[in-house]
Structures are given as C-alpha cells and as structure tokens.
C-alpha cells in the first residue's frame, strides 16, 4: 500500500465513485423532468408542473453535489496522472475541453433559468429551459464517456517520434464505436437510477398515504421509464457492449466471466467464485454454451479463456472484476423482472393498492446506484493493466514527482470532506421529501426551489 501507483488508483477510484453517485441521478432525472414538462404542456394539467418543481428541487441539490465533486476529477488528470496527461492530453484534452466549453456553460446558464425563471419564462420558455438542461447534462455525459472510450479502445491516433500520441481525426475520436455503445449503456443506466428513485419516492408516499395524486404519477412514470430503460440496458446496449469487449479486449472478457480455459461451447457462470491461484471457478452454477452463443451467436464457437493470454496482460484484480460484473448483470436482470411485474400490475390497475409491490419499489432505491457503480468498476478494472488499452500501462501514467505520502494525505482529506458532504446531502434531500410536492403553481414553489441552488437570487 505504499507504492504511489496503488494510492493514485485508490484516489481516483474513490473520488470518481463518489462523484458519479450524483450525475447518474441528474442525467436520469433531467429526462424525466422533460417528460413531466411535456405532459404539462400537452395536457394542461397543473399537477405535472407541480411534480416537475418537486423533482427540480431534488435535481438542484444533486447537481450542486455533482459540480463540487466533479471539479476534482478534471484536476486529477494533471495532479495524479501527469505522464498520462502529457502523452494523451492532445487527444483526450479535446473532449474534456469541449465538455467545459459546450456542456458546463450550457448547464449552468439554463439551470438558473430553469430553477428561478418559471414565472418569467412562461410554460413554453420553461419547457425549453428544462430541455436545455437535459441537453447540457447528456452532452456532458457523452463527452466524458467518449473520453473513457478512447482509453478503452484508442482510435484516430498515430504515434510520434518520441512516443507522443497524436490525434489524426477529430470525428474519429468523437464517433469511436466503443463510445457510442458505452454511452447508450451508461445513459440507460442513468435513466434506470432516475426512474427507480422516482418510483421509490412515489411508493413511499403511497405507503404513508401522503401526496397521493403526485405519488401515482411518480410511480407510473417511474415504472414505465424503468421498464423501457431496464430492457434497453440488456438489449441492445449491454449485449453490444459485451461483444465490443469480446472483440477488442478478449482477455478482459475471459476475466469477467471467470473463464480460465479456452473452450468450444463455453458456458456462462451465473454463480461461482474465481480462484486465481488454482485458475478455476469454485462452486460454479453454469448455463452450458451460453457464453459462446452470446459472444459469437453460435453455440459451439470457441471462446478464449485466460490461459490464451500472457499473465502480464491479465487484469490485475480478477476477483473484483468478476464480482463487479456479476453484480451488475444480476441486478440488471432483477430490475427487468421487477419492472415487468410492476408494469403488469399498473396495466391491470392494481399497482397503487399492491402493498407488497410498493414496498419492493421503495426498497429498491439503492440498487441502481450499486449496479451503475459495479458497471463502471467492470469497465475500469477490465481495462487494467492498461491505462490506454494496448498503448500505456497504468504504472507508466502516474505523476513521477508526487510521493505516495502526499497522495495519502489528500485521499484522506477527500474522504473526510465527502463524509461531511454526504451527511449534509442526505439531510437536505430528506427535508425535500418530507415537505413533498406542493399544489398551487407560482411563487411558493419558486421560493423553495431557489433555496437549493444559487440561494435566493
């Protein structure tokens, strides 16, 4: 634990994991708020505007948390990963710079208008502001994911005489096929979080018999959006992402699946513990030939196991990679089952009275966060031991002059600060939920919203 590489990795992992708890909700909610605002415009029913205002308050708190925890991410490329930044800055600096110039300004300008300007802008103008906030946050998501995609599957570059990485095609970088599927998968993951949170709060209100009209809207929209997103998460986005990994990172695929031996008609392990020392999977529960089929669409095709690759190219933490991946897929499957059941009850008209289903929806709130986090852990552990796949080892990317002691110091500092932030965050969100959505449009809601962002302004 004293080498700088380990501490630098922990530092980034900790700060980015904490950070991504917030954007996944704001990106998902941004879409759902646009849907609520659209319903309000279409139906003229004021309750959708009240609902949008309630969710805007939750959005505002999460957005503020996302911003303050996001700034350290951009700094860390330089502070902790200087050699990586120096080599690759000419490429990934493009997308990171564009995120600042295009997305952040768009979001910060229109969020103020969205939170404070409902009366001044009128219904159409306010819908427009909500749409711009949605576009800004989803564009920001794209530019970040395509940055990561370049590290997973470097494209549109050539190597210079001193080993520097030179960008050769701007559009090649932006339209990296890996990035497009990763983005689709990531964004439907964010919608799952937004939808489950919305449904969970609705279920909570129904179970406690408060704000019931709004609660039914929340549950309805949450369940429908959740079902669509959960299905999309597996097919096509998850499936396409998986085949992308099989093609470009076959060793990662083998490690994710716990497949130690190359075989024809490879099975998928639903359960099992990888034993790296003895190179086998303990207590496996397998679906025969499924991995071959999913990967190559033929039951008997050969899938390369870890034994087909030199050990130095294996991901360095196979158990954690394997478990992250299995937790993600397992939860994703449970989400689909749950949402199909809830949607069926909704269609039958029995959902709002089904206490068991409402309890399940309410208690499911943390799980999309776990699934999204596990998904990113799969992506990032899977890329190891490379920082840029096939081009630069993680070891070679750290800041040469920054000692592990200094990194420990700042890591502990971030842990302390984020603990305090978490407590404040939970307290504020709890107060918004306790207060609930408010009827009667106009001033009162605006005031409450303005408490959360910008402070009365």
């Amino acid at each position, binding site marked *: 634990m004293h080498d700088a590489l380990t501490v630098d990795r922990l530092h980034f992992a900790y700060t980015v994991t904490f950070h991504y708890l917030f954007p996944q909700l704001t990106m998902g909610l941004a879409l759902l708020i646009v849907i609520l605002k659209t319903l309000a415009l279409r139906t003229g029913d004021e309750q959708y505007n009240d609902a949008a205002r309630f969710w805007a308050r939750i959005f505002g708190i999460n957005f503020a948390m996302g911003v303050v925890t996001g*700034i350290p991410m951009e700094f860390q490329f330089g502070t902790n990963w*200087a050699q990586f930044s120096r080599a690759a800055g000419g490429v990934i600096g493009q997308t990171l*710079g564009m995120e600042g110039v295009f997305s952040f300004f768009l979001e910060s300008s229109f969020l103020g208008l969205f939170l404070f300007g409902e009366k001044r802008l009128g219904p159409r103008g306010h819908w427009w502001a909500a749409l711009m906030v949605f576009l800004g946050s989803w564009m920001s998501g794209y530019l970040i994911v395509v940055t990561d995609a370049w590290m997973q599957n470097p494209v549109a570059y050539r190597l210079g005489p001193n080993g520097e990485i030179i960008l050769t095609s701007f559009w090649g970088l932006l339209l990296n096929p890996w990035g497009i599927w990763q983005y689709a998968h990531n964004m439907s993951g964010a919608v799952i979080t937004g939808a489950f949170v919305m449904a969970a709060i609705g279920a909570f209100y129904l179970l406690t018999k408060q704000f019931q009209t709004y609660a039914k809207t929340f549950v309805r929209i949450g369940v429908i959006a959740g079902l669509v997103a959960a299905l999309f998460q597996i097919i096509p986005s998850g499936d396409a992402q998986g085949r992308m990994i099989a093609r470009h990172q076959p060793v990662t695929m083998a490690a994710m699946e716990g497949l130690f031996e190359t075989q024809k008609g490879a099975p998928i392990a639903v359960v099992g513990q990888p034993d790296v020392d003895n190179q086998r999977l303990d207590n496996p529960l397998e679906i025969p030939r499924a991995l071959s089929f999913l990967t190559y669409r033929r039951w008997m095709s050969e899938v390369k196991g870890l034994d087909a690759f030199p050990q130095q190219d294996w991901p360095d933490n196979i158990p954690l990679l394997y478990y992250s991946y299995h937790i993600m897929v397992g939860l994703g499957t449970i989400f689909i089952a749950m949402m199909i059941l809830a949607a069926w009850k909704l269609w039958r008209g029995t959902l709002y009275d089904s206490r068991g289903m409402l309890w399940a929806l309410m208690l499911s709130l943390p799980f999309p966060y776990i699934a999204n986090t596990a998904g990113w852990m799969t992506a990032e552990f899977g890329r190891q031991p490379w920082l840029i796949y096939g081009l630069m080892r993680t070891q070679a990317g750290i800041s040469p002059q920054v000692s592990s002691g200094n990194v420990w*110091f*700042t890591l502990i500092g971030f842990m302390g600060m984020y603990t305090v932030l978490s407590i404040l965050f939970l307290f504020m969100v709890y107060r918004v939920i306790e207060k609930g959505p408010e009827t009667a449009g106009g001033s009162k809601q605006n005031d409450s919203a303005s408490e959360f962002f910008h402070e*009365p302004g």
Partner: protein
Amino acid sequence: MQTVWFCLVAIMVAMYVVLDGFDLGAGAIHLWVARDDGERQQVIRSIGPVWDGNEVWLLAGGGTLYFAFPALYAAGFSGFYLPLMIVLWLLILRGIAVEFRGHLTTPVWLRFWDVVFSGSSLLLAVFFGAALGNVVRGVPLNDQGYFFEALWTNFRLGTNTGILDWYTIIVGVAALATLVLHGALWVALKTENAVHDRSFSLAHGVWWIVLVLTIVLTAITFKVQPGVPANLASHPWGYFFPALALSGLAGMLWFIRKRDELKSFLASCIYIVGMLTSAVFGLYPLVLPASTNPAYSLTVDNAKAPDYGLRVGLAWWIVGMILVAAYHFHVYRSFAGKVKIEESGKGY
C-alpha cells in the same frame, strides 16, 4: 498556432479572474461590509445567480489548457499538487457554504456558513495569487519536465523553492488586495444603503494599498524574473499592457471619486486584465520558467499539443465561445440591477 492558443488560454484565465474575482472578492469582504443577516443576504444574492457560471471559466480554462499545452498541464498540476488540492477543498467548502446557507438558517449555522464562505474566498484569492507568483518566478523543473514543490521551504528564492516564499507571498497579498477592491466595487454596484456605503468606502481605502503593492510588485518582479523587462525592451509595443493596467488603476480612483459605480468596476476589470496580460507578455514564449536550468523551461513550442489538434480545436472553441457569450449576456441581463433589501426574505 501555439501563439494563438497561448493568447486564447491567457484570455480564458483573464476572464476567470475578472469574473470569479469579483465573487471571491465579495466573499472576502463579506463579514466586513455586511453586519447582520439581512445585509449578508444582500451580499450573497449579489453574486448568487452568477458565481457558479463564473467558476465554469476555471474548468473551461483548465480543459483548454489541457488539450492545447498538455505538457504544461501535466507539469504544473502535478508540481503544484498540494496547493491545488487545497484550492479544490476550498472551492468545495465555498460552494456548499453558498448553496446550503439557505437551508440551515438558525443563527449558529448562518454564522458558520458566513465564516466558511468568507474564509475560503479570502484564502482562494491568496492561493491564486501565489500560484501566479510561482509561474512568474519559475519552478525547479527537472530534465524530464516535472517538478514538485513543497508548500514552503525556507521562504527564499533559489532552486529549492516552496510554493510560498517572500515573493509569492507578496503576489498573493497583492492578489487579495486587488480582488478585495474588485469585489467591493461589485458589491457597491449591486447593493444599496449600508452595505453599499461600507463597500464603497472600503474600495476607496484599499485602492491606496493596491497602488503601493502594484509599485512594489512591479519593481521586485523585474528583479526576480529578468525576462519580463527584457521582453518589454525588445518589443516596445508590449508597453501597451502595463499602460492598460495603469489606466485602469487611475480610472478606478477617478470614478470612485465621482461615485460612478459601474465605471469604477469596469476600470477594475481593465486593471486586472492589464496586470495579467503584462505578466504573460513578459513571460512569452515561456509558459513555465525553470529555476534550475533555463534549458528545462517549458515554452509554447515544447509544451504544445500537435498541430492538427490545435487546428480543429480552434474551430470548436470559436463556436463554443460565441454560445458562451450569448448565455452570459442573457444571464447578466436577467439579473441586472440592484439587489433590493425588502426582498431579502425569499425569491428574487
């Protein structure tokens, strides 16, 4: 092309300092010019709708620096590791103090948030100044183009410098004074009554401190970084930048005396832009001078990204900046005018 990007990054940094500078300055004088909760809300609301948009300039500037001069970004950010992390913590604390002040409104919490907000703003101004001081003075770059500076060593110049030494501390103090003046003029522009009067008289007093520090700073900078006077001597048109700073400084006193709030604030913007552009003009073509061996210095040529990236970057950068100008125009127009005291409760 690298010179174009050198100018563009300098413009973005100057935009950041001018814009976020006034809300940092407003934060630094917060406890002084506003004495009760109503008055403090006036100060906070004078920056409320704009401060986080201003802070985006830091991110956008950082991102632009990253792709235009990757080697500078890598060397600078890792070399200034500790102060940058402290700056991050201060930015986080300041952000949550402004955002959450409206939530926890019992007197003890309000007092707490006010002190956090003001203290973090003040320290940020000093740190940003010290960072500029470090860049002008030079840092102990090695032959690989990296360095690491402790927060302080023996407070002397040389090759074993820390972030803080007597020179960078003076720059930090000068930055604080400049931003206090800048922030006070902003608060005066946006408020009325007691807060307005205190800010205005504070600005008047601090102007003299800024004058003295400007003279001192110019004199010692010419000693510490001889490249600056040398650049001015070889390219006399560069005297435009110090002249700009001086005209801003003189204009401030003139308009403060005439009690013209808007023009004195604009003069302060000109002063800041003049000082920053003078510094970067003096350094060019260096972007990070080495105090160890002049050959290790980072210049626009050895720190730049390859040309193709710089060319496509210019295309999207221009489009982006036109959009940004439109947003800023829109937001500042929406929140134009004075913050009214009777509104201090809720809403806008």
